[in-house]
């Protein structure tokens, strides 16, 4: 149909914590500039899947490909791989001992070895982009949740990742702050960033998502365009989940 590049491919991924089988035979492909939204009940394995994609958790079976290349602990330095896969967490996880700008330039300087002046210039640009041009030098503790999450997005973008993973980026926010984070994410998607987003914001999924993946009990139950999933789900389980969250 089109000749976009494949960014992430997951092939028969399995993951267990001890006896608990959390991800079961997951197949998933994310093409360049696509936004894939993962939905599903709490405990269905969405976070674990994201965490396997950037190797914060180690898979027990199956394969993960990045840019068509099979990634393995034995053949790759996972620190290099993680630089290419940005992650935004539910609870922001900003570095409290560093200023906003300090958070953003930390990894470019100390991981990529970028020159400091350049990292600062780029970091400020990113902060301007997420609407925090007046917050460079304050500490994260002085920010609202929405501002914190936008710093976290800028921090991840500073590594120029090929794909961004979002794990319920608005779930810890007061309702009135959700919009500012979603609109930052939407802009990012419009610029062509490849994104995998776990969220309960169905409006965002419908509007911004290219694909929606419904997970239940460690399996992908249904996969389709937002309209298909929201308006005519094939599976009964998808239908009941959707009606429970809308």
């Amino acid at each position: 149909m089109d000749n976009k590049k494949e960014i992430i491919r997951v092939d028969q991924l399995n993951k267990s914590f001890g006896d608990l089988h959390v991800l079961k035979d997951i197949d998933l492909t994310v093409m360049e500039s696509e936004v894939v939204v993962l939905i599903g009940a709490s405990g269905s394995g969405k976070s674990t899947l994201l965490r396997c994609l950037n190797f914060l958790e180690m898979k027990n079976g199956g394969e993960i490909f990045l840019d068509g290349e099979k990634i393995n602990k034995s053949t790759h330095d996972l620190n290099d791989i993680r630089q290419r896969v940005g992650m935004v967490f539910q609870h922001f996880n900003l570095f409290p001992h560093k200023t906003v700008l300090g958070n953003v330039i930390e990894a470019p300087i100390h991981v990529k070895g970028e020159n400091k002046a350049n990292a600062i210039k780029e970091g400020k640009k990113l902060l301007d982009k997420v609407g925090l041009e007046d917050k460079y030098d304050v500490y994260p503790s002085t920010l609202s949740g929405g501002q914190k999450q936008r710093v976290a997005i800028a921090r991840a973008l500073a590594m120029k990742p090929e794909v961004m993973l979002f794990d319920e980026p608005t779930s810890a926010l007061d309702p009135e702050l959700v919009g500012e984070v979603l609109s930052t994410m939407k802009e990012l998607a419009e610029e062509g960033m490849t994104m995998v987003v776990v969220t309960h914001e169905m409006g965002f999924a419908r509007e911004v998502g290219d694909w929606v993946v419904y997970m239940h009990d460690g399996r992908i139950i249904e996969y389709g365009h937002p309209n298909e999933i929201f308006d005519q789900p094939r599976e009964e389980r998808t239908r009941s989940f959707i009606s429970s969250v809308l």
Partner: protein
Amino acid sequence: MAAIMHFFDVFINSYDVFLDGLWITFKLSLASLVIAFFIGLFFAVLKISNIRILEWIADAYIWIVRGTPLIVQIFILFYGLTDILLIPMFWAGVAGLAFHSGAYIAEIIRGAIQSIEKGQREAGRSLGMSTSLTMRRIILPQAFRRAVPSLGNQFIIGIKDSSLVSFIGMQDLFGVASTMGSNSFDYLSYFFTVAVYYLFIVLVLTVLVNRIEKRLAVSD
């Protein structure tokens, strides 16, 4: 009244010998606590290494320090180091005190490291930072901040414990008080005098630690 006047007399007239003692206590405490800090950091990292043998070594060290009186540790290190290795008395005293405080500092630092939220480590790792870089740049700076009150407290204990080196013959504050007391048979006045010196040191340190705590609180 006369007794109080007498104490002041002793306090004022003895200042030069006590200042010599104070200087020794100061050098001894500073050297031993700096070394103890690095010993503590080292064993704290062993304890969280998830490598069984390293954890076991750290446990053994902490167990030995906790399980024996400081005075015994000082005597063993003093005779061991000065008789066998011919190390000067001052450094033998430093070694004894550092060996002891190191274990408590290790536990303080380990606790502080483990109190840092798991998300901090994950955020570092997700940016491509290695385990050791994440430890150095993200976890330890936060852990040290959190540990400042406990470390300050341990430093105060360390300074007071340094008085035990007088038993290996050092003329630190307490050594000076003992010598002056036994020379004059006026033990009480000299021990009161030395108590005032210790109180003063601890007061200064307490104020300093509070300052540092306030300074570090800007980011919280």
